[in-house]
Every structure is written in C-alpha cells, then in structure tokens.
C-alpha cells in the first residue's frame, strides 16, 4: 500500500437535480447497449448510472451498412437509433436493469414532439426509470433527432411535453451542431429541464479516395471519440457558466484526467461513450482513477471539482 492509499477516501457522490449518483461516471447512450452487453466486463452496480440506448415508440430499423468508419482519434457512426421499440425495451431491458442496484437513465427518441412524451408515459406506466435523457440531438435520422435540437422553438416544445409526462429528473441532451449552444440550453432549462447533457456527436463525413465513395452508407454520420473532446469541453464550460442546472459532460472521455477536466469545466456528471469500444472496462478505470486522483490531491469531495476551473 502506498502513502496515498492511507488518506481518507473522497466522497464521490454527485447530484443531478434530485438524482443522487454514487459517483459522477455514467455511460453514454448508444455505446453501452442496455448495460447487459457489458456485464461480463463491468460490475454495473459500481457505475454512477447506466444510460440506455435510445428508445422510440415503435421499432426503428436504423440505417444501411456500413454504419461506422474510424477517423483520426475518433469514429463516425450512422447507426440511426435502431431500437426494438418501447414495448420490447420495457419487457426485456428495463425489467432486467431494475433488478440491479444502479440508477437507470432511459434515453428517449422520437419522430415527433408527441412521440417523446408517449415513450416516457409508457415507461412511467411500467414503473418508470430513475431519470430520462431526451435526445434532441441525433444527427443520424431524417425526421426527429437533431431537428428538435438545433432551434430553440422545437427544443422548448419537446422539453415542455416531456416535462408534462414525468415528475422524475429530466435531462435534455444537446447537439453541438448549432451556432449557439447556450441559447438552446437556456431554452430547455426554462421549460423545466432538470439537467442538460452534452455533447452528442458532431456531423461529419469520411471518403474512401480509391473507390471515390463515402465510407458510410448514409454518407454523413456523427463524430465521437477523443477528436471531439476540446469542442465538448468548450461547450460544457459555456453552458455551465450560463445555466443554474447541472450539466452532464461527454465527448472523448477516455481517462480519469479527462473526467476531471470536464468537471472543472462545470460538469456535475460525465459520460463515457466511444472509449468503451476500445476498452470495455473504461468506466471502471475512470471511476477508480478519479477516486485516486482526488485522494492524492486531498480533494475531499469530487463535487468540489465542479466548475473549479481557475481562469
């Protein structure tokens, strides 16, 4: 045992509105399935929260293949919110997740304002989730998704109707594909969002020069991974400075130090996405690393890092 280990364990708890997490580390929607897929590698009960793959009212088939392309320090995806619909989700995934002692955040998708709220209502009937994350920022579907997240009007409308559907914590997930992310964040906050999560993927493209073809069947897709971290940090910092509600930060987080940076920029929670593909134990590595990081620097509460950026 080294000297650092003998110092007191830091308090790792953080709050997202009324939702208390045992630590700030969550999973990023769509990169962790329903959690079960990772359960051979990760003790899910150690996570701050499991955020599930986006779910819509009816099954969605997603986009054609190829659906991914590796790019410099990241990847593009055009999965397109493939999901089996809320009924299957409730029966199979939610029922299983509820047997575990871990907060479950259900990521909600819709083609229309009404669909988001109906998905939440259906899950509420089935006993509810610990929180909902409303995805108004998916760049991979034609109708819905990012369409709602790139203008204040639709973003407000979706938030309002979801707010009416549940008393539970409502997190709205924002798109980076906008001119002013703060404006959208303020709009959803004023409609009663309890927290915002950002960033979703950045719209991008990759081309195979030899075949002169796009690498994705859908041509464009969402960029994620370490390549987007500086943009994500900047947006988290801007939004956290402008809003009174908590922020969940994500975009390229791979190490505990990345997580610390997001918290310093103002994030109360962090989510890990693409890094799970490279190392399926990333979430645990970040939790352990964050604990050690705090202990070694005599940070008594991890929450003390939130917004503690010195400028």
């Amino acid at each position, binding site marked *: 045992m080294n000297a650092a280990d003998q110092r007191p364990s830091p308090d790792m708890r953080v709050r997202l509105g009324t939702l208390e997490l045992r630590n700030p580390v969550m999973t990023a929607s769509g990169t962790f*399935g329903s959690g079960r*897929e990772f359960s051979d590698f990760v003790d899910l009960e150690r996570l701050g929260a499991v955020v599930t*793959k986006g779910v819509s009212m009816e099954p969605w088939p997603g986009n054609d*293949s190829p659906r991914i392309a590796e790019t410099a320090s990241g990847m593009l995806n055009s*999965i397109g919110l493939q999901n089996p619909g809320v009924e299957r989700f409730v029966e199979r995934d939610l029922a299983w997740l509820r047997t575990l002692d871990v907060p479950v955040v259900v990521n909600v998708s819709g083609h229309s304002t009404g669909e988001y709220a109906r998905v939440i209502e259906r899950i509420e009937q089935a006993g509810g989730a610990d929180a909902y994350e409303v995805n108004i920022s998916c760049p991979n579907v034609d109708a819905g998704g990012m369409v709602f997240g790139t203008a204040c009007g639709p973003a407000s409308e979706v938030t309002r109707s979801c707010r009416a559907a549940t008393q539970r914590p409502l997190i709205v997930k924002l798109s980076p594909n906008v001119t002013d992310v703060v404006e959208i964040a303020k709009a959803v906050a004023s409609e009663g969002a309890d927290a915002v999560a950002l960033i979703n993927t950045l719209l991008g493209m990759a081309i195979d020069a030899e075949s002169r073809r796009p690498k994705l069947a859908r041509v464009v897709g969402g960029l994620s991974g370490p*390549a987007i971290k500086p943009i994500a940090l900047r947006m988290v910092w801007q939004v956290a400075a402008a809003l009174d509600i908590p922020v969940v930060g994500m975009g390229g987080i791979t190490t505990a130090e990345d997580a610390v940076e997001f918290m310093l920029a103002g994030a109360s929670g962090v989510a890990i996405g693409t890094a799970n*593909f490279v190392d399926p134990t990333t979430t645990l590595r970040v939790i352990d690393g964050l604990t050690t990081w705090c202990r070694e620097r005599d940070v008594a509460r991890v929450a003390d890092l939130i917004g503690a950026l010195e400028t």
Partner: protein
Amino acid sequence: MTGEAHTHPRSHPPVLESTPVVVNDRVAEGIGLLVLDAPLVATHVQPGQFVHLRVAEGTDFILRRPFSVHRVVGGRIEILYQVLGRGTRQMSELEQGDVIDVVGPLGNGWTLPDDASHALLVAGGLGAAPLGMWAERLAERGVAVSVAQGAPYSERLVARELFERVARRVEIATDDGSAGERGFVTGPAERLIRSGEVEVVFACGPERMQQAVANLAAAAGIPCQVSLERLMACGIGACLSCVVSTTEGLKRACVDGPVFDASTIKWESSEVPPKH
C-alpha cells in the same frame, strides 16, 4: 436444416486477456500469422468464434479489430491476417514479447448438424482462417471433410497444409492457375456439392462467394453455414454497427453471428467494401 443446427453449444463468456506475442511471421505476400499466448481464450474458444484485438497499446485512439481464431495450440491462439490498412499494418509490426490485449472468445461459431457425417468446407482467401480449427475438430470427431479452397495465387493458399493433413480431399482454384484449376473456388465447390456426398457446407470468404455457395447448397437441399464480416466497434452486441439482414430481422454479426444459417440471410444487404 435440423433444429439442432441452430442451437449453439453454450459458449463461455468473453474475457479481457493480456497476451504476449509469441510469433508474428509473414506467411505470404501481405499475410501474417500471429501467435498469442492466451490461455484463457484458448481454453474456451470454439471453432468459428473470433477475438477482438487491440492491435497497439498506447494513447493513440484505435478501435479493436476482429479476427477469427484460426487454430489453438496448447494455451496459444493462432491468427491469420491480411494486411489491409492502419490496424493490420500495426499488427504486422508486433514483435515477440510485445503484449496486446484480447477480448474473446466472441460470437457464435460453426455447428455440426446431428446426423452429418461428411462436411464440405469452402474457403475463399482469408476465409480459410476460421475454418482451420473447424477442419481439425471435424476430423477428430470422425466426420469426413472435403475442402474447396481458392485464392488469387498459389502462395496465398493459407492453411493449405492443414487442410491437406485432415481432409479426405482438397480441391483448389486460383485466379492465375498457379495451383489447382484457374478460376473461382465456386467451381470446385459446385462439383463437390453436386457429387451428392457432402451433407453440410461451411463457407467463409468474400460475401459474394458465400452467397454463391449458399445458393448451390440450397439448390442441392444441403444445409449451409456462412461466416459474415461486418465493420465492428464494440464486438459484444452493444453498438449495432455490425448488423446483418436476415429473415428474422436485423441480427448483430458479433453476437448473433458471425456464423449464420445461410438460408436466413437476406443477401442484398451491403457488405464491407471488398478487399484486394
């Protein structure tokens, strides 16, 4: 196909294993053989399953790359790989003693229908990789094995010696005629299927070749399994990068495959750009 062929032996859950490189040899132009000391994976892997390799350690971001386990020898796994792009180039630079991490065993492998006593293996190019261990296993079980193998030229007939050791018959086709007959592997495959001797077909190679073989088997009323490749991110069923269109809807190649009953595949689904 009998119902039995759909039920896979319950496979062992995947593990994350740090594996030292034992051998990394060039076996032909642009093709390498990587041998990893991977006792956990080696103990549990079934023929046709694959591993997900982190081909380089370090801080540079790189997704894992999927590779079939070609053979198991003691606590070691053998991987045959073709150098195509960034990941496989990195693999070709690995040296004895380097340690890389492996997730596996993954996916569903080949299954022998209950009553089959003579199997045809059709291997196109690197499609020979997932069939090596299967050929050995079938021969051990006393199943007669015939092989149709194809490659661009003779040197690229990877695993040919293995097939010749365990199979009753190996028929070869090369694009340039440098070994066997000139032409595609579908030539010998068709003759062997039509011979009426084989009772089940296992195929791996370019998707168009697998489709052709599946059609030949269907026409002959013989069950056929194929091993499909898709670009993969997670390899464990979470990300939906790797979907395959089937008569039962979209399936994930990484957990529902990579081996599928060919009669369930909707072949119009797009394939990874062909490799050359």
